């Protein structure tokens, strides 16, 4: 099975886009990430990751309408494609399989 590799940060960004649904663009993704993970994320890093994901086919984008705020500049909205959803599911399955394979005593030690 050929599977595109999804980096850790890419995975989080892809998930965040999925969470935000219709409202996912540069600013919201960054802010959501900072709130949820509590870590400061570089604006350009997020942008670059979004673009890379789009190039890989996990995200699709289209320009929104003109906005009143931000000087009338349009936003680029991102939506998760079918491939993107599949990739997320795959990652989740792999995780769950791995968690499931964890010996019970180790799980207990971790406080789970």
């Amino acid at each position, binding site marked *: 099975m050929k599977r595109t590799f999804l980096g850790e940060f890419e995975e989080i960004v892809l998930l965040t886009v999925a969470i935000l649904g219709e409202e996912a*663009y*540069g*600013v919201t993704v*960054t*802010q959501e990430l900072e709130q949820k993970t509590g870590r400061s994320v*570089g*604006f*350009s*890093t997020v*942008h*670059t990751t979004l*673009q890379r994901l789009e190039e890989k086919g996990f995200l699709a984008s289209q*320009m929104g309408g003109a*906005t009143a*705020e*931000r*000087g009338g*500049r*349009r*936003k*680029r909205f991102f939506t998760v494609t079918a491939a993107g959803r599949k990739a997320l599911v795959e990652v989740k399955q792999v995780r769950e399989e791995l968690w499931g394979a964890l010996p019970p005593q180790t799980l207990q030690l971790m406080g789970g």
Partner: protein
Amino acid sequence: MHSNPPRLADRFLQFFCAPHLLEEVQGDLHEEFEYQVKHAGARRARWRYWRDVLGFFQPRYIKRKPSQYPQTYLFSLNMLHNYFKIAVRNLLKNKGYSFINIGGLAVGMVVAILSGLWVWDELSFNQYHQNYARIAQVMIKETDEGNVGYSNSVPYPLATELKTNYQSNFKHIVTSSNAGDYILTAGENKFLRKGQFMEAKAPEMLSLKMIYGSWAGLNDPHSILISASTAQALFGNTDPLNQVMKINNKLDVTVTGVYEDLPLNSVFNDINFFAPFDLWVSDNEWVRESANNWHNHFLKVYVEIQPTTDFERVSKTIKDAELKNIGDLKDKVAENPQVFLHPMHNWHLYPFKNGAVNPEPTQMVWLIGIIGAFVLLLACINFVNLSTARSEKRAKEVGIRKAIGSVQGQLISQFFSESFLVVLLSFFLAFVLLLFTLTWFNDLSAKAISIPWTNAYFWLFCLLFIFVTGLLAGSYPSFYLSSFQPIKVLKGINVVNRFAFTPRKVLVVFQFTISVTLIISTIVVYRQVQFAKNRPVGYTREGLLMLAMKSDAFSGKHEILRTELKNTGAVSEISASMGRMTQVSSNNDGLEWKGKKPEQDKNFSTLTVSHEHGKTVGWQFVKGRDFSRKYATDSSGIVINEAAMKYMGLQNPVGETISWKFRENTAYFQVIGIIKDMVMESPYEPVKPAIFYIKPINGKPNWLNVKINPSVSISQALPKIEAVFKKIVPTVPFDYQFVDDEYNAKFKAEERIGKLATFFAVLAIFISCLGLFGLASFVAEQRTKEIGIRKVLGASVAGIWQLLSKDFVVLVILSCLISVPISHYFMDGWLQKYTYRTEISWWIFGVTSLGALGITLLTVSFQAIKAALVNPVKSLKSE
């Protein structure tokens, strides 16, 4: 509070970010900034903004999206072919314009090249000598009662001092006599030639190009080096080496070398022979006696410094070379003589005059350079004016080219290639013109300029010149034309709005301002020369010839010469005088008269003459009488000029006694006559007080003046006079000068400026008119329809002529108004240097302005009347 993101960061982002990404990135950044301002404060937000912008500075965001259309190549060979084809077609289609463009530009270029060569010649003066950069002349700066004086004549002991104590600074120290005229005799041939007696190292230092013999030629004290032309004159085609000849009929010398004639732009150009310094010393007892005399300044000392040092350092070292040795001579110490070196590269352009560096040579270089540049600029303006004026014709072409897919860069290169084509054609034409005008220009400027065909710098300069002219002439049209919008042009909207004409007007005004200024200046220069020429000179120059008595052969022959010459009937009188008529060779103080005030210490011209001098040169007596042989007392008589009478303040000077202490002796004179002032020196300066006397107090008369009988023609008289001279002084060549020729030579410098100014002024006005002609014809063509309609409605030819000419006349009047104060300012400054000068009358401005207007009207009217006479049916039917 509303806060904006840092502007610089924003600008930077706009600069580097690819356009297709900029909108979203910048929008997001701005939104984030607003958010941060609210939550973290403006300061933090700004910091963060900067950080974020810099974060985007990576290839992903910088790389531009590739265009979906193929790139246009700016320099495709096919297009270049096409440009030149179109350019040539355009030139051939509008032959009139092409002629004005190319011809005008070529004329401008000729002027620019000529003035460039002239300036180059001035700057490269003396560079013929290979050691040019290290040769200098020893000079002395003296301060006499606050007056600074610079002298290139130095006392004999200074030369000795330099050799004994300062030799290590110099490669060569060459002591030399003044240049002077000497009679050279070889067999039957004798000529008067200028020469200099120099020490043996001179030929090496001056790097003479030897044709025969070597630089060591002056080592033998009885040798002589002669120039090639002199050798040709003396010995014809025979080998001159080791031939025996005489200097001034008494010094026997052997020719040990022949050198190539020195070029016109070397100070030693007129030196036709070099002879050993020691020979001169042995022939002149007074020189030997002056060996320890610090008072007598009579030597020239040329040096070549060591390659390891520089002029400034050596000047500093030798500064006190004189002062150290004159401890007991109080009067010399008071003058504080400072010895210094005057480098060869400054001899021509920075000579000393009246105690300061004479600025005139440098001013002249600047003037010629600037005028040359201006005339070229005028020609370039023509090109620009005509190109933009014709832009409407090319507008459709530009529109179509753009519609098909030309980008602006292509059009710019098209018009540049067109202008370079024109410039190149003009340059070739200019070179052809240059070949024809160079001889004439050399005559005019008294130079021997040639085109330096083999000089790489010259060609480099020419290339640069073509390039600059092409840029200058082509930049405005190319940027202007290429900026047309194709839609407007193709729809036929008049793209040339009324403002487009304004720069053209400014340029026309500029052109005519320069031309009119040049014309006014030319007239003023000529008026000044004429004014000085018309000055009463106080004696008769016509038919008066003079002759230097160079040789002892003349002594005791005066009476017999006089009788023989008068017996021929061709001569009415002869006289001897000290110095020539066109020069005052002796000035002295020490005169005393009744009522002399102590502060009256001005020098008088003191000249010994023979009895008949007054009759020969035509003295004009105001009071008293001439010298006469009848009165024995006249040997202590004196004739003074009006200036002397005024200076002495004597009411009735005839019979007054004047005493003159010359060196140790005092002579007493009786005034017998007062004559009108004679202009012997500069015709622009007031005449100095002068006294004339028979007694040879300060030297014997050394010039002979011969007045030709007015009833005999000069061509008949000359052979007779020559025969007498051949008979009585056979060893002396009959080398004479006419006083009026010599007098006219005093105006040479001014006349040359006048001629050069005329040359430039005529060309400037010619080029300007050429441009005006082009513009007028263009305007007439542009308004063909308007003129047709006006004529149909009843306008007269005169009315239309007026309509078309008015605009240009206004411009020319404006330029006249501008040039009047400019030229007045400059010419007034120029005239200030002459004491005897003309006024700048207002009629000069009036006449020049009227003349300029007249020429303008003539130029414009030709086109205006042609347009006005066209049958309106024809002009309205077209298109």
